């Protein structure tokens, strides 16, 4: 392919991303160096917003919560997604049927799904899970103000709507594993567990990496589900970084757009650092392709 052709083909996409992603990003960086309100011109304040953000203990808590949630959820998604994928993939005629059911939580908008989820736990709305748990254990669990039960609800909801994607991608990966390889391993007398561990999993490593990278990105950005699930997130340390930005820059007419932008920039740095191993792999692959 000639350079001219290449440039012509990627131009529309680059223009769209340049105009609607890079330009806004530039604006965010600019705002992060200003004291600014909506609809007003800002005044340059240098790195004040950054030092304000970094000295706010809330940011540290938000980072800790977000990264912790990411670790737990992503690990569950990969292990759970794999187990579920193996089970579903082994089904016969009922497979499309089961897949359809499992995909429901994935296609429901997060905020709507999280609201439905919160109703299961909220005594005010006759939550059935809450009712069952308190009837069975005789113990009232404070799902919305006790930090750990609330974290459990948040993690469960996040897993609930992300598991189908992970399962779907892993099923696709499993179908690409050559039958002969599995057969060979079985003839060698390997146990079922060994076949999975040393034959199938290594051969779909790329797929599992893909699930990991997409999930890490999405959980790091956790926001929508916290609105219904954690009304008191700030007080109990369950504020995600995105929710923190929202509370600072938008909620209740909070007008600290500059501070919010500075946290945005810091979050981008965090994401790039966490994704660095993947970035290197991709850069290498793209140059060779």
């Amino acid at each position, binding site marked *: 392919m000639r350079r001219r052709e290449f440039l012509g083909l990627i131009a529309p996409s680059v223009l769209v991303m340049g105009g609607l992603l890079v330009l806004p990003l530039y604006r965010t960086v600019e705002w992060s160096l200003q004291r600014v309100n909506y609809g*007003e011109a800002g005044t340059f304040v240098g790195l004040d917003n950054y030092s304000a953000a970094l000295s706010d203990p809330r940011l540290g808590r938000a980072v800790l919560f977000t990264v912790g949630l990411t670790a737990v959820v992503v690990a569950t998604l990969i292990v759970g997604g794999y187990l579920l994928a193996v089970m579903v993939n082994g089904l016969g005629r*009922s497979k499309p*049927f089961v897949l359809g059911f499992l995909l429901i939580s994935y296609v429901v908008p997060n905020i709507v799904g999280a609201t439905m989820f919160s109703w299961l736990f909220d005594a*005010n709305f006759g939550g059935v899970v809450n009712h069952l748990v308190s009837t069975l254990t005789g113990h009232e669990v404070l799902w*919305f103000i006790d930090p750990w039960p609330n974290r459990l609800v948040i993690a469960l909801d996040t897993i609930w709507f992300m598991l189908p994607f992970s399962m779907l991608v892993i099923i696709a990966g499993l179908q690409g594993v050559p039958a002969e390889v599995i057969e060979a391993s079985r003839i060698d007398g390997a146990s079922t567990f060994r076949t999975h561990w040393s034959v199938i999993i290594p051969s779909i490593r790329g797929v599992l990496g893909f699930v990991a990278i997409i999930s890490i990105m999405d959980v790091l950005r956790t926001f929508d589900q916290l609105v219904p699930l954690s009304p008191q997130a700030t*007080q109990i340390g369950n504020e995600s970084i995105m929710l923190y930005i929202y509370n600072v820059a938008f*909620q209740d007419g909070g007008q600290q757009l500059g501070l919010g932008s500075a946290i945005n920039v810091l979050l981008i740095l965090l994401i790039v650092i966490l994704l660095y191993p993947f970035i290197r792999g991709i850069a290498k692959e793209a140059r060779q392709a």
Partner: protein
Amino acid sequence: MPQPRTTVVRALATTISAALLLTACGAGSRTSSSTAAQVDCDFPAPSKATSVNVLAYNSSAIDPFTNTMVKSCSKNQVTVKHEPIDFAGQVQKTTATLAGDTGTYDVVETYGFIIPKYAGEQKLRPLDEYVAEFDQEYGLSDINKAMRQAMSYDGKLYGLPMQAQMYVMAYRKDVFESLGLKPPTTFAELRDVAGKIQQAGQIKYPVALPLLASSDIATAYDSALGSLGVDYVDATTMTPNFDKPEAAKAFDELRSLAPFMDPQVTTFDQPRVQQQMYNGSAAVAIMFSGRMNDLTQASNSKFSQQFGFAPPPSVAGGDVLYNTLSVDGWSIPTNAAADPKMLFEMIASSVSADASKASVPAAYPARDGIVTPGSSPYAEAAQVSIGKAPPAEPHPWTSRISNDTRTVVADVVLGNTPVAEGTAQMQQIAAKILAEYKK
């Protein structure tokens, strides 16, 4: 490969979807609810088709005024549009629409608390000249003076009052009667009554207050402080009052109710408190009067006939109750696109005598003499309550202090921060804000 079972499921899903879509017959046909009045809204037709966007949260007290405006003023090439939104949504959209040179909304629902801030920033249009012009036509001089005062800043009117909202206490008559209790008039009595209900064993957490940590809790603290006779700020010396003993006492009193409230009460906004009452989970609730009419609706709760209403208690005895008086009204943003005179006629017609009468019993209209003790089950309680509220603090810093100290208030009420440390932090935050206004 055909998969018979999926086909069945698919057919089923399609059928259910179709059946639900069928409920759409006559979509949009009831845009105004039955509380909407048809009133005169006589603005001259504009030269071209115009649409007027109204920002107002939904509650049974605000809806009658909004719906009347939509119903009566959509004519002469003008479409008045109102989309349902909750209170948090209104707060956020108000900030957004008032920022910048143009805004989406032409008419905004406002309340006394935020008028000084937005008026001080010249984001709202003064209405006095229009009031003078249309006084006769819409009978504007019958609107209560004090309420007009509450919507004014620096001697000018920035919001046309539609109604007052004050705290009212709702309680379960049947529960109180069976235990021989009387509606409490102080927090000490409230604790006593709540303790007795708790002991009776039927209701575990008898008291419900809107204490949502991200919003209502600030109003609750302000009400408690006000009932103890102290303002946020001493306006003459421009010093915050959080170092006064009452500031700590207000916290102690609010916290003293904790054993009688649901442990998750700091996640309750007013609709959730209503739900507590609908469900019979609580026996006493204190919230704005505009939420009371919902309780009396049989369609919402099987206890609708059991609710009694009383003025809220005072925190430590005395004449000023645990209370907030909030006047709701209509404002016109400075950056509204439509002709302000036409917009004024619309808001004036929505608070006209006929419209105000139609809003009872759901609301407590701003016009003198419309609410009588017999207007609604809670009218008498509301009338007592309105006269015993702490004075408003009509200054631009009030809403800012309230906003910026809210997380501290929440942390103290929740017990995360000791009272003394919390009040010290609040004193500092408020002093910093006040410094901006001293110059």
